[in-house]
């Protein structure tokens, strides 16, 4: 969406450094901005304008470090610093307590991300798995997963053929320890595809 978009060049506080600022009318779902020195992503955005009144930009923003969501209403002309996040391809190595160890695929540098920062992503991480690690001001704040991942079922009740009372989804545990509901025909040891955005079963993988 280009209509009405305005970029604003402002001199940074460091003097000389130039930052392109967003204004309230640039706010969109998915935009990343800095509020109180922390990166937030816009998850809900609504433009409103009460009759003859001023434009108001109502948003919900999720703190990308803590996961907490806040409600904010902004007025026309308010400015935001974009949160520029760096993405680096890394491999998940192992877990130690609530520390998750990753290795940068290019520099072989190792970093630790806490379980809290990983959020739901921890449910889908297995050793040697490749992810994009998000860094904010050189600090790892989370990982970006592919929309679909394949994981193995390590525990689920067997399907009793002909038993229609059990036609509904049944509980299953994955190799990461994550529990979800799967269709009755899925058996222990099978590989299934999970939608990481919803955490739900997507399909069975034919091996």
């Amino acid at each position, binding site marked *: 969406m280009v209509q009405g978009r305005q970029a604003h060049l402002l001199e940074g506080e460091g003097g000389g450094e130039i930052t392109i600022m967003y204004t309230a009318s640039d706010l969109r779902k998915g935009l990343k901005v800095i509020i109180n020195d922390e990166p937030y992503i816009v998850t809900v955005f609504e433009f*409103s304008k*009460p009759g003859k009144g001023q434009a108001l930009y109502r948003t919900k923003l999720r703190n990308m470090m803590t996961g907490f969501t806040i409600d904010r*209403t902004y007025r026309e002309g308010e400015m935001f610093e974009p949160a520029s996040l760096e993405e680096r391809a890394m491999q998940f190595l192992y877990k130690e307590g609530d520390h998750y160890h990753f290795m940068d695929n290019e520099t072989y540098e190792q970093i630790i991300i806490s379980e809290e920062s990983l959020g739901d992503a921890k449910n889908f991480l297995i050793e040697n798995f490749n992810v994009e690690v998000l860094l904010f001001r050189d600090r790892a704040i989370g990982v970006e997963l592919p929309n679909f991942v394949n994981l193995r079922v390590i525990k689920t009740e067997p399907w009793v053929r002909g038993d229609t009372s059990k036609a509904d989804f049944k509980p299953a545990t994955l190799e990461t320890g994550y529990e979800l509901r799967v269709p009755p025909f899925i058996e222990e040891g099978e590989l299934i595809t999970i939608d990481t955005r919803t955490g739900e079963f997507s399909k069975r993988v034919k091996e």
Partner: protein
Amino acid sequence: MAKSWSLAKRQKALQQRANILQGVRHFFIERDYLEVETSHRIPTPAPESHIDATPSGAWFLHTSPELCMKRMMAAGYGKIFQICRCWRERERGNLHLPEFTLLEWYRAEADYHLLMQDCEGLIQEVASLIGLGEKIIYRGDEIDLSKPWERISVKEAFRYYTQTSVNEALKGDTFDEIMVRDIEPKLGLKKPTFIYDYPSERGALARLKPEDQTVAERFELYIGGLELANGFSELVNSEEQRRRFHLENENRQSIGKSVYPMPDKFLNELDNMPPSAGIALGEDRLAMVLLNAEKIDEVVAFTPEEL
């Protein structure tokens, strides 16, 4: 060969939208209104604090046909209506398009109460014309269109729906936020609702109420929490109008917006305008309500992003 599915699937909605427009025309023509077409491209938009016009060369695309239609009223046209495209900069959201369709009508020897009755008659008639009954469903609410509709003053609405008063909200500069957050979503859920008598500073072109000069004779119509129309008894005093335009321009300047030239021809003719009332109703919004659409995108052929 490419085909736009988003456009193809709107065919039914666009057919109904066309029926709504025909119904609106029929309503006014039957009541002896003259359909007029005023210029889209104008040299001077009305200076208002929060409405920004799209420049077109050294002129502007009109943000509403208000000034031209009032000049016609001043020239003796007693009952006129217009359905036209209007443009407002940077207005885009689920309920806003930067190019949208307005219906405006003006009638001499009338005040805002009569306009409210017009709204009741118009929307009831158009709804029945497109096959809807007295009750419509909009965003999950069942709304009864039978007359009379609900009427609530801005003061009452603040008392009823909020913890604060209109004066406190104005003083604290939170009037708009409170309207949007606490009041608008509650309006027109069971019956369409007119909210009327806005603070005088919220009606730059409206007449002040003779018995209470702190409010303007202005109202808004809401159906299912959606704002559909804004109408008022017209201010017909050019001196007072000029003063208010200057105030609006000063306000624009203070919030870093461009100042508009004075619409002198309009001001010079305004004193000839008989006591009148005029109203703007969003046609796209009317289609949204009658077709139970969540987004304005669903009732137009093209959004700016699709062009």
